[in-house]
């Protein structure tokens, strides 16, 4: 999660929000890359929020002419920025295509493992890559035409801009429905021929290498402006939550000690105990890995004992897919527990500092 301008729209007053929405539409119509549009809109958002606090009107901020303001704001968009935008637009389609190609590659390996005679250069993918690419190209051309028309509309009046923008949204919705209907009708026929697997693999690899190299700025921007989910959602401070839980635990432990006739824990002893628990928790990566492997083994054994696998490749597939899914789940769990541990350690540190400060002031 990174600190996007979109999270702060709710803090704008209606008059500012109305103007900001139109600026967003214009910036989107300019078809510039995500980092540039994010930077521009974050700057505008920051200025609008500050101006709002200072009691300035929107007219004072945009100089009375929204169209001119937007044109000046977006002036000098480079060709590189537009190319990066095209590459970014292709991303969701290529993720799906890449995933499908990878599955097909695994299917190819499984066919080999079963001892079937097959040739890598003539093995066909289950998707028609060229059809996908033509589809993407059409969407991109349409997007750029939309952008040009919207910019023209904005130059005449913001009322016209709004109407044209709504019309295009409607056209998009209709086009998506037509495409979906086409896919549903043709899925039953199953008469198309997939692209050669090696071509799909090559095109996907080239795309992802290009994407990685051209969007380095975007990753840097997101990394620099990382923000926690709690901060975005406006949830209460995590440390307050920890404080509540830890103090409850402290009370509970001492009540138990009293009941058992044991000496009560001092707060510093409790902090030490909690710190030890945190450190033992940070070594839990091995536990998560083992859990994923164990679950996969359990599933594998269950299938073997019930119906078994018809081919060796089915067994390999089962292990790879189950291990991947469980590995991802365990990784997410491990990350979440690491985050909790780091928050707890910060809290322990702050409590120790507080205690030290108190001792020094007493002295």
């Amino acid at each position, binding site marked *: 999660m990174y600190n996007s*301008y979109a999270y*702060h729209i709710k803090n704008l007053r209606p008059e500012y929000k109305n103007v900001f929405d139109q600026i967003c539409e214009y910036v989107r119509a300019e078809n510039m890359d995500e980092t540039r549009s994010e930077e521009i809109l*974050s*700057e505008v*958002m*920051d200025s609008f929020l500050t101006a709002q606090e200072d009691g300035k009107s929107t007219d004072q901020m*945009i*100089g009375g002419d929204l169209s001119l303001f937007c044109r*000046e704001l977006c002036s*000098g968009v480079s060709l590189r920025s537009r190319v990066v935008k095209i590459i970014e637009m292709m991303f969701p389609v290529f993720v799906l295509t890449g995933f499908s190609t990878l599955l097909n590659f695994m299917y190819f390996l499984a066919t080999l493992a079963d001892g079937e005679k097959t040739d890598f250069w003539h093995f066909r993918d289950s998707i028609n890559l060229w059809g996908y690419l033509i589809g993407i190209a059409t969407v991109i051309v349409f997007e750029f035409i939309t952008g040009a028309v919207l910019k023209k509309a904005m130059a005449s009046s913001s009322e016209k801009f709004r109407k044209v923008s709504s019309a295009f949204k409607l056209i998009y919705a209709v086009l998506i429905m037509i495409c979906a209907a086409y896919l549903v009708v043709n899925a039953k026929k199953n008469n198309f021929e997939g692209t050669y697997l090696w071509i799909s693999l090559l095109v996907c690899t080239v795309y992802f290498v290009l994407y990685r190299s051209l969007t380095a700025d975007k990753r840097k921007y997101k990394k620099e402006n990382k923000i926690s989910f709690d901060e975005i959602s406006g949830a209460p401070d995590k440390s307050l939550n920890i404080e509540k839980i830890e103090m409850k635990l402290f009370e509970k432990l001492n009540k138990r000690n009293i009941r058992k006739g044991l000496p009560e824990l001092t707060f510093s002893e409790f902090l030490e105990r909690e710190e030890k628990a945190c450190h033992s928790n940070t070594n839990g990566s091995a536990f998560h890995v083992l859990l994923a492997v164990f679950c996969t083994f359990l599933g594998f054994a269950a299938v073997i004992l019930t119906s078994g696998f018809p081919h060796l490749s089915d067994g390999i597939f089962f292990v790879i897919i189950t291990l991947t899914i469980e590995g991802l789940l365990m990784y997410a769990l491990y990350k979440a527990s690491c985050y909790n541990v780091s928050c707890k350690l910060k809290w322990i540190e702050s409590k120790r500092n507080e205690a030290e400060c108190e001792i020094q002031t007493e002295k």
Partner: protein
Amino acid sequence: MDNAQLLKGVLEGCVLAVIAKGETYGYEIIGELEKAGFEDIGEGTLYPVLTRLDKNKLIMCRRAKSPLGPVRKYYSITDEGSDALSDFKERYRKISRSAESLLYDDVPADNV
């Protein structure tokens, strides 16, 4: 005569002069320019100027979270920028002297 055209050349130098006073951000620069008498400068005009200065390495920027939440760009001047500002001041003085001597006949070029 178009005011924007007249401003175009001067604005970059003036923005650079504001940034030279210390690290600052877009909204504050607009405030400083307004105080100096540039009333029609908005974010729309300023943003491309800042982008150009950054691209030419006359200023550098760092991003940080603003007190109100969104990402804010803080600008500071580079050594190249300081040199460019001194150069701009010198050239601007010469041009304004010449222009004033032409526009206001009673002011001799050497005495301005």
